[in-house]
């Protein structure tokens, strides 16, 4: 087992595309870290640099104590699972799994024993003589995982391994993969664009956007304390409500047309520079709807109702035509056009600097 240390990684592709821009990530020994971001954010490129399939423009990569910058992939002692599985089509499932062991020139008996052990673990014993073409996508994924596990590498690198599966299979594999990683205790770097996968599976989540690392933390840290405006908008479903505001005397947050005016406590006000453009963010579960408003509640009107069964998401229209989403229990049965009052959970307000995108609180 080994840790992965990525230091100031930069990858510039021909045509001057900065795919990865000064990214530093540390994955502790045995840790499951998910690299999360929209497509084209540089997460896969980062992973490929760690694998040695791509050579970084600058920066250092350590696997364990070894600096692997110039080391070919074969010598890095890693396993890589591809989005399209990349099973060798002309080889049976057995030979696919045995392939890395043959590279290591292990004796035949040991190859056989280890392939069967892995097949047992993944419940694919009965599929070993089949070619990849005759396997379902779930089975193919298991064989691909088998090929990764069988050589007992220092590090697992997984590139969107669940993206090509249908939803129910994906949920099953998520659980299984997490369990497998815990059982094996192998340091894992997992790339996905699916925030649910990231939240459910990762011990830590690293969020990337436009080649830059936005935030690294536990899933709850990233959810509760987004470090940048991008993280706030990217993580969470429905996405966080964001509004352009400035801090004015009162103290309160006021939007440009003055129709929206939210009084805030002085502790928060002290962190915000006065009269500079800010963005205010609040999650839908931190807006509380009451059908009989009292003083201090913000008046609003129900604009759209989205019942999800276990909860209902209301789109609310505030003065000045601002829309915000609020979650409510299904017992609160409101109709479009109903006048309601909204209480903002002020302790859970997020304030961002517009210029830098960084969280002020």
């Amino acid at each position, binding site marked *: 087992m080994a840790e992965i240390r990525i230091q100031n990684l930069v990858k510039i592709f021909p045509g001057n595309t900065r795919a990865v821009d000064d990214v530093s990530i540390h994955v502790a020994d045995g840790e499951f870290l998910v690299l999360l971001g929209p497509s084209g954010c540089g997460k896969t490129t980062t992973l490929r640099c760690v694998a040695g399939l791509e050579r970084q423009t600058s920066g250092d990569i350590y696997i364990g104590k070894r600096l692997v910058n110039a080391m070919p992939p074969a010598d890095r002692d*890693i396993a890589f699972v591809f989005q399209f599985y990349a099973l060798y089509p002309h080889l049976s499932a057995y030979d696919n799994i045995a392939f890395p062991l043959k590279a290591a020139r292990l004796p035949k008996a040991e190859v056989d024993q280890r392939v069967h052990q892995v097949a047992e673990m993944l419940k694919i014993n009965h599929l070993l003589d089949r070619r990849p073409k005759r396997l379902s996508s779930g089975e193919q994924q298991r064989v691909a995982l088998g090929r990764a596990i069988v050589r007992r590498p220092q590090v697992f690198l997984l590139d969107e391994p669940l993206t090509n599966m249908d939803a129910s299979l994906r949920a099953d594999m998520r659980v299984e993969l997490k369990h497998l990683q815990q059982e094996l205790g192998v340091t894992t770097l997992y790339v996905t664009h699916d925030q649910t996968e990231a939240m459910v599976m990762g011990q830590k989540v690293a969020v990337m956007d436009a080649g830059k690392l936005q935030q690294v933390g536990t899933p709850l840290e990233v959810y509760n304390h987004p470090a940048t405006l991008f993280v706030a908008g990217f993580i969470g479903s429905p996405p966080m409500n964001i509004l352009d505001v400035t801090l004015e005397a009162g103290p309160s947050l006021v939007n440009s047309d003055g129709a929206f005016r939210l009084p805030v406590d002085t502790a928060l006000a002290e962190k915000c520079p006065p009269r500079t453009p800010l963005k205010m963010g609040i999650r839908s579960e931190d807006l509380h709807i009451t059908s009989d408003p009292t003083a201090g509640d913000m008046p609003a009107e129900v604009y759209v109702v989205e019942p999800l069964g276990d909860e209902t998401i209301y789109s609310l229209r505030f003065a000045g035509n601002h829309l915000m989403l609020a979650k409510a229990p299904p017992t609160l049965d409101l109709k479009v056009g109903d006048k309601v009052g909204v209480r903002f959970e002020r302790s859970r307000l997020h304030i961002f600097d517009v210029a830098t995108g960084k969280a002020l609180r």
Partner: protein
Amino acid sequence: MSTSRFKVSYVAGQIVSWLLVALTLFFFLFPFYWMFLASIKQPGDVTSLPPRFIPFVQFKPTLENYAIVLSTSAMGSRQNTFPWALLNSILVGGTATVVAVILGTLTAYAFSRFRVKGEADLLFFILSTRMLPPVVVLIPIFLMFTDLGLPNTFVGITLLYITSGLPFVVWMMKGFFDEIPHEYEEAAMVDGYSRLEAVWKIVIPEAFPAMLATAVFVLIMAWNEFVFVTLLNKQSWGTVPPFLYQIIGYGRTEWSRMAAAAIIYITPIVVFTFAVRNHLLRGVTFGAVRR
């Protein structure tokens, strides 16, 4: 009844489609049958009118033509016999095909997988060598070959066929490699193999049908080439096409000997094409079934 009407139209459709198949087959296969007949006829029977189609009934078949064609003494000088020409064809065509396919495959792999400077221009240059009719470069090539002492040599004519086969191989194989996901080699490289091992163990087995399909085309091209070999290898290392042409020249035309020689000459190609026909189909339809 509608079912019986359906049956009738179904049967009619079957008959029409079988007729069409039969007609097509007749169109393509009859010349071969005619050539085969000519090869087992006595000289007099070949040109007889009305033509004789049925051996044993209309004429007495003979294998004499094959015997004459295959003997090393019956026709022309010692070096200039059909068995020699056939051997030359096999050596030249086989070598040219193997070398062109290997070199072309490696070139195509490099173009497909690596960032090559000026890739589009280079590929176009390779293709452009096939753009003008070969006859146009006949004289320059003849002069160059003469300066280099290449006429009447195995190396010269083989080199020429390799050169003319290469662009085709590069373009065909580049198309195939582009269809093979690069993740295959990457997976193998992560699994502990070098790039060369990954290519050998993973990419080549995948590309093999395509290589066979390409080889068929290159071989046929070399097998059929007439103009250059006639001009360059007049004295030695002549292949079968100029030899066949020579037979016409000897007094009266020996149709039945020509037919016998032609039958022998097409056999290796037919056998090879037939042996790889499944690969050929897969090779040609390669891109259509991936991902």
